[in-house]
């Protein structure tokens, strides 16, 4: 996957000595030290010191070292490397900030009863010893499983169409599916609301599951298509050549070979919808007690729980929102980890078969 752009050295045979590394170390330490000193002495703001003093200085230093070592060409290269690292660091800092703040603030709300109790008799100012997200975890799982039952078979069938059939309009189907995967979640909720208005269905867990369906389907179809594409076509052709009809070739040869990929599609589809908030707010009534009947009454879910408590603005309610966010992120991480393990097993398998050849 990664192609390294090895920089041509001036003298490929020369050993790197302390003397040749010294400017590199100096160039990476001096600007930071200088910016910190100036920032402290002039009592500058951190972000100002970073952007106005450190960044230009560091770019200058990198450019200087590049120029000294490789000439004119090295100047641009060094600045490019610095800019790349700077912007990627920004991404890292933002992501780390999200994860760390959820972990820290969420952990302080965490306790066994927070995971098991429900929200009956809990107001936004009730202390954290009472009440929890137990009902919301169950509700989220219930709704997500309902969506999965509908979306996964259909998504796999779409993927089969895109990989096995020789229909002419495959390209359009693929484009529309990809365009659907960018469907705004609030539109999906409004769509189900419009249907409910015409047919006359009450708001319940089922309508929430329906509102998540258009969001999960394209993800499952795309990932399943990729995994089916990875199965060598020799396998399918061999099965067909032995006289197997297409459906037997699929169920007995291709599906077993792509099993882990299909499970990955399921897991990534789940991760896609488990945190969706807007469609659920539009189509489900909130509920403080545990409700496991998807056909009647409101159901609590983790995203709507976070939404509700964050909207009420007290510090205890915010703490509850952080706790629920941590639970939600752990669920997402669990799904992701499982998907990772699945794909790793797959790659190991293909490696070992290659070796056997």
């Amino acid at each position, binding site marked *: 996957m990664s192609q390294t752009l090895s920089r041509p050295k001036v003298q490929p045979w020369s050993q790197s000595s302390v003397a040749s590394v010294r400017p590199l170390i100096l160039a990476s330490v001096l600007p930071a030290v200088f910016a910190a000193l100036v920032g402290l002495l002039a009592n500058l703001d951190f972000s100002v010191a970073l952007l106005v003093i450190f960044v230009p200085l560091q770019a200058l230093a990198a450019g200087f070292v590049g120029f000294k070592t490789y000439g004119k060409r090295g100047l641009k290269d060094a600045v490019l490397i610095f800019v790349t690292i700077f912007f990627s660091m920004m991404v890292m800092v933002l992501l780390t900030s999200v994860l760390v703040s959820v972990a820290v603030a969420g952990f302080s709300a965490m306790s066994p009863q927070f995971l098991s109790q429900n929200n009956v008799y809990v107001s936004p100012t009730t202390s954290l010893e009472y009440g929890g997200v137990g009902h919301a975890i169950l509700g989220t799982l219930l709704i997500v499983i309902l969506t999965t039952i509908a979306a996964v078979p259909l998504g796999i069938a779409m993927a089969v169409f895109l990989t096995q059939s020789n229909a002419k309009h495959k390209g359009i*189907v693929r484009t529309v599916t990809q365009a659907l995967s960018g469907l705004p979640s609030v539109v999906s909720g409004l769509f189900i609301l419009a249907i409910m208005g015409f047919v006359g269905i009450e708001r319940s867990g089922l309508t929430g599951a329906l509102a998540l369906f258009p969001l999960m389907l394209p993800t499952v179809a795309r990932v399943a298509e990729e995994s089916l594409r990875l199965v060598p076509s020799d396998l399918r052709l061999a099965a067909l050549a032995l006289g197997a009809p297409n459906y037997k070739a699929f169920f007995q040869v291709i599906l077993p070979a792509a099993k882990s990929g299909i499970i990955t599609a399921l897991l990534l589809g789940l991760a896609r919808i488990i945190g969706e908030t807007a469609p659920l707010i539009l189509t489900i009534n909130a509920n403080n007690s545990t409700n496991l009947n998807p056909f009647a009454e409101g159901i609590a879910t983790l995203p709507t729980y976070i939404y509700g408590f964050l909207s009420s603005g007290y510090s205890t309610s915010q703490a509850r929102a952080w706790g629920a966010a941590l639970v939600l992120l752990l669920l997402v991480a669990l799904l992701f980890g499982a998907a990772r393990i699945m794909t790793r097993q797959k790659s190991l398998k293909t490696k070992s078969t290659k070796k056997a050849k």
Partner: protein
Amino acid sequence: MESELANPKANQARRKLNVGPRSRGDRVFFGITSLAANFAFVLVALILVFLMVSAWPALQSQGLAFIYGSTWVADEGAEPIMQLGPMIWGSIQIAFIGILLGTPMAVATAYLIVFMLPSRAAKVATTVVDLMAALPSVVIGLWGLIVFTPVAAHWAQILNQTLGWFPVFAIEGEQPTYVDSPFIAGWIVAVMIVPIITSVTREIFSQMDSGLINGALALGAGRWAVLSRVILPTSRGGILGGVLLGLGRAIGETVAILYVLQLSFDINWYQILEPRGGAVASFILARFGEATPLEFQGLMAAGLVIFVVTLIVNTIASLIVNRSTRRVK
């Protein structure tokens, strides 16, 4: 035998290869899969039809002013005036800020992953970016409201005090709070779209013909020359597709923006630090709870607007991405 040899054309016709599904099982199998595939079209059509039918009365009564007007009065009893202009402009504004902030970060991260990191670290970084894409938008909203807003308000204050002479960073009101502005919402959108642009760009970078790159290196090109003369010209289209996918996501972003932006029908053309802004999707969610039946039709029309816009943007984006990945291959 002889007759067949004498008449090769008849022989050819008889031995014509039949590649279609022959057995009944196959016909059922392909029938089901093509039904499922056509469901993608059905779904798009259903969404369009249902939203349009529910929104029709509102669209009819408001006319074109629904798109460009800037009043939203929908109280019980009175004749509702529903004009979405400031929200639509706000969505465009926030998406623009988000893309302006997010694209350099995303392209730099993709470049770092593909061309600078050793392969094991690259794998870790890829996982991290994918995980970032899976962060639920309500969690980003929570973080944006409690953790990020104070930081960004501080940046906004510095921007306003040093570059306030520039109209974009000016603030009209006295004692500004620097929060709830399109500037902060743009940052939040950037956090949401960086992983999308990164993964598309990474895909395209990693499918680059390494012969081209090695050839350029052999000719004495440095990193910068390889990037500007080889990598960017070949992958420009794909990066544009990724940016468009990000744009689609930015327009549809709902919950996260709702927390960090003050929705206002007092249109804010360019003063991005003012606590006035708009976002169509967030507005739908914000008004939904207390909407009258007539206003509800207006919200459906708003949903129709973002659906049509995102569908067009996403279709163009996926066409571009598909074409450029194929060409690079």
